[in-house]
């Protein structure tokens, strides 16, 4: 922060490289198209530069940055009449796992797995960690409902903790968890299909 205030361009460039793509992805939750989302992200950086003198360090820089982004994106989204009602978390019964994977009431173990999920330890996990499924994961996240996409981006890509996510997105702790649960479950399913097909 001190480097930024002192006008250190490399410090600013490092922040842009680190956060720009996530800012754009989050902005896409509130505004219609990619180019508007990019504009909102750029405005956010200008607001950061103009506000840096007033940043008091009570929240982390990251939380502050993403809050500026969501505020601007909301304003922009309201103008475009397409703000996402964040309180709505969608179908309350959306299951994490396809119900067909479990035995029925008349079966031997109702609610038990028909076939166990396979372990990923060893080779599958190494392949995932080597980045093999990167495009698939990004694509899966892209297809998620906007509020699930926002939560998994902040929690699992950006490494925010739960409180920071609630703060940045103005969601309750419970809703944050439900959204994260569904998002992770869908990414897991995509990875499972990918690994089984290979």
């Amino acid at each position, binding site marked *: 922060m001190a480097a930024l205030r002192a006008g250190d361009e490399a410090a600013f460039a490092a922040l842009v490289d680190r956060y*720009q*793509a996530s800012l754009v992805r989050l902005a896409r939750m509130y505004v219609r198209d990619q180019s508007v989302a990019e504009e909102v992200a750029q405005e956010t950086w*200008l607001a950061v530069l103009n506000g840096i003198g007033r940043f008091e360090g009570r929240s982390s820089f990251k939380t502050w940055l993403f809050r500026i982004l969501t505020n601007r994106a909301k304003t922009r989204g309201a103008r475009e009449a397409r703000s996402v009602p964040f309180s709505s978390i969608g179908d309350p019964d959306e299951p994490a796992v396809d119900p067909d994977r479990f035995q029925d009431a008349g079966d031997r173990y109702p609610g*038990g797995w028909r*076939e166990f999920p396979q372990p990923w330890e060893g080779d599958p996990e190494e392949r995932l960690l080597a*980045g093999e499924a990167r495009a698939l994961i990004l694509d899966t996240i892209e297809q998620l409902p906007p509020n699930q996409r926002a939560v998994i981006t902040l929690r699992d890509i950006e490494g925010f903790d739960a409180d920071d996510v609630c703060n940045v997105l103005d969601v309750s702790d419970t809703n944050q968890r439900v959204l994260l649960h569904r998002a*992770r479950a869908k990414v897991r399913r995509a*990875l499972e299909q990918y690994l089984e097909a290979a």
Partner: protein
Amino acid sequence: MSCKELVELVTEYLEGSLPPEERARFEEHLGICPGCVNYVEQIRATITTVGTIREEEIPPQTRDELLAAFRDWKPT
């Protein structure tokens, strides 16, 4: 607790927000069910894998514009 119920509690379990009794029942189930052990491990691997995603490079023009804006702003 059935397997079908357990998979819906995984996030609360990993967040440490399950009430103690439910946590105990969750862990008891894991103790006897390799399928659910695998499922929880798959979710952990999913989280780790998503965490390794480094963002795509940002368009050079955007970067240049932002750095130009920085130079304009820069206290002299």
